[in-house]
């Protein structure tokens, strides 16, 4: 690397590399151990969340027999699917506008998109609550869907836009030179090329919706409990193995979707132009 790195400095750097490696390992342990503990105890045959008595799936059985949990799961899926579908379409259109056009007010549009991703959730939650009450809209599944679309659009926009910015424009220009209409160009050239980004954006939108607690907490009504709200209300009665089991189900669902999304994003790198 350098002319100056004698044996002493090399030895030093090996020691500091080793220290960095150990530190990194500990951070990963810190990131994963707490969730791991919750998942581990969900398979405990005893009611205790401290002593592991033996392997059992009885708490998962109890989950399946709890109708309120199943209802919450159904609500979460319904909200997630509908909100994702709407947010993905709107987010993709927005990404196309922002990456392909220069216009007055673009900075404002950009800032609003980013503000929506970093605005503290509690502010979004209470402002929507105030808005729905002022507008006379009853709180329930509909208001949850509206809120989820509002906070996931920006994430879809950012992911799709990243994909668009790395895309080779010459393919679209070629299609248009060959006589394709703008619509044909979009459906036959642009969309297939950005599809991995769109799919990844959709999957992230779904996990955000599926996991959201704070915003949902403020805009849900009676009988419109989602899984995170259900977990929260169960928590009020103390820590139980059933919550561990439910948490495990939610974490694994998220994990599967995230790994799927990352495959889409990883696969998209190979086909990136320029």
């Amino acid at each position, binding site marked *: *690397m*350098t002319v100056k790195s004698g044996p002493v400095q090399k030895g030093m*750097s090996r020691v*500091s590399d080793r220290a*960095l*490696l150990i*530190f*990194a390992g500990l*951070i990963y342990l*810190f*990131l994963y151990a*707490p*969730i791991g*503990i919750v998942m581990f105890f969900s398979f405990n045959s005893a009611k205790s*969340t*401290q002593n592991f008595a033996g392997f059992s799936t009885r708490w998962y059985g109890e989950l399946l027999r709890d109708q309120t949990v199943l209802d919450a799961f159904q609500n979460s899926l319904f909200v997630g699917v509908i909100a994702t579908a709407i947010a993905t*379409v*709107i987010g993709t*259109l*927005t990404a196309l506008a922002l*990456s*392909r*056009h*220069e*216009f007055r007010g673009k900075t404002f*549009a*950009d800032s*609003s998109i*980013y503000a929506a991703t*970093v605005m*503290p*959730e*509690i*502010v*979004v939650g*209470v*402002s*929507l609550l*105030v*808005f729905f009450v002022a507008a006379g809209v009853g709180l329930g599944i509909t208001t949850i869907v*509206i*809120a989820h679309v*509002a*906070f996931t*659009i920006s994430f879809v926009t*950012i992911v799709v836009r*990243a994909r668009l910015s790395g895309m080779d424009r010459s393919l679209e220009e070629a299609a248009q030179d060959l006589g394709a209409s*703008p619509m044909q160009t979009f459906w036959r050239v642009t969309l297939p090329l950005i599809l991995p980004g769109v799919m990844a954006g959709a999957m992230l939108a779904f996990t*955000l919706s599926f*996991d959201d607690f*704070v915003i949902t907490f403020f805009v849900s009504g009676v009988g419109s409990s989602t899984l*995170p709200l259900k977990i929260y209300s169960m*928590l009020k009665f103390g*820590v139980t193995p059933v919550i561990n089991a439910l*948490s495990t189900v*939610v*974490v694994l669902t*998220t994990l599967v979707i*995230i790994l799927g999304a990352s495959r889409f994003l*990883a696969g998209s790198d190979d086909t990136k132009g320029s």
Partner: protein
Amino acid sequence: MRGRKGWSLGLAGLLSPVTFWLGLFFLVPLLLILAYSFGTSGVYGGITLGFNPGNYLKVFDPLYLEIVVRTFIIAGINTLLCLLLGYPLAYFIAFKGRRWRNILILMVMVPFWTSFLIRAYAWVVILNGNGIANKTLQFLGLTSEPINLIYTPGAVTLGMMYAYLPFMILPLYAALEKFDGRLKEAAQDLGASKWHTFWRVTFPLSMPGVIAGSILVFIPSAGEFVIPNLLGGSRTVMMGNLVQQQFLQARDWAFGSALAMMLAALLLAAILFYVRRVGTDELEGA
């Protein structure tokens, strides 16, 4: 190459759905609580609009000031801890990760996307009276009987650090990953020690990541209410809990709105600071 210039029918078509949705369900609600924050709450929960700065002045009431100060201290400590723990990891992934880089960064992203509520709950399981933390302390002979770990400011800080660490690592990694290794070599060829190279070259160049990460950790920590709710109990109340109380229990929506606006203003100030220090290119890029 740059995009098409100016407004057109097509552009208006692309932008109208987002304008409608974010306009009606994000900006209008924010403007509404801005208006409410200057209103006066009635005895029975109604609100009269007007220009009443009293809701903002109320935070100087010692009762509430204590909560605001605590919020800033906990959010500040959390940001610092995330930076101290996150920087070495981001550095490790960016410079030593080699072909495992993508997997290593994905392993940071998985907890980032995993339910916040469950990650906070995990610490309830660990820290409660007979939880693993107490068991370990007793096993090591540090304590003879269970000590009170949960429902303390320490528990809240730990839970927050756990929740927000990925928010720090990801922008730090994004900044370090772009780093041109030749700059480091140049510094060392010119006789700088490794330590010197880091503080004079690597660290200053990673500043955009440090600032972005600190904002992404500090702002949501200041507005956090789930973690202090689950891990802080009634003695570690933060601004987020106060907002929730004003809206759902006390029904003083004017004061609640003022508190929420203060959190939003904090975000605005942070974004302006970022744009001034780093510029908007970073925003448009990634």
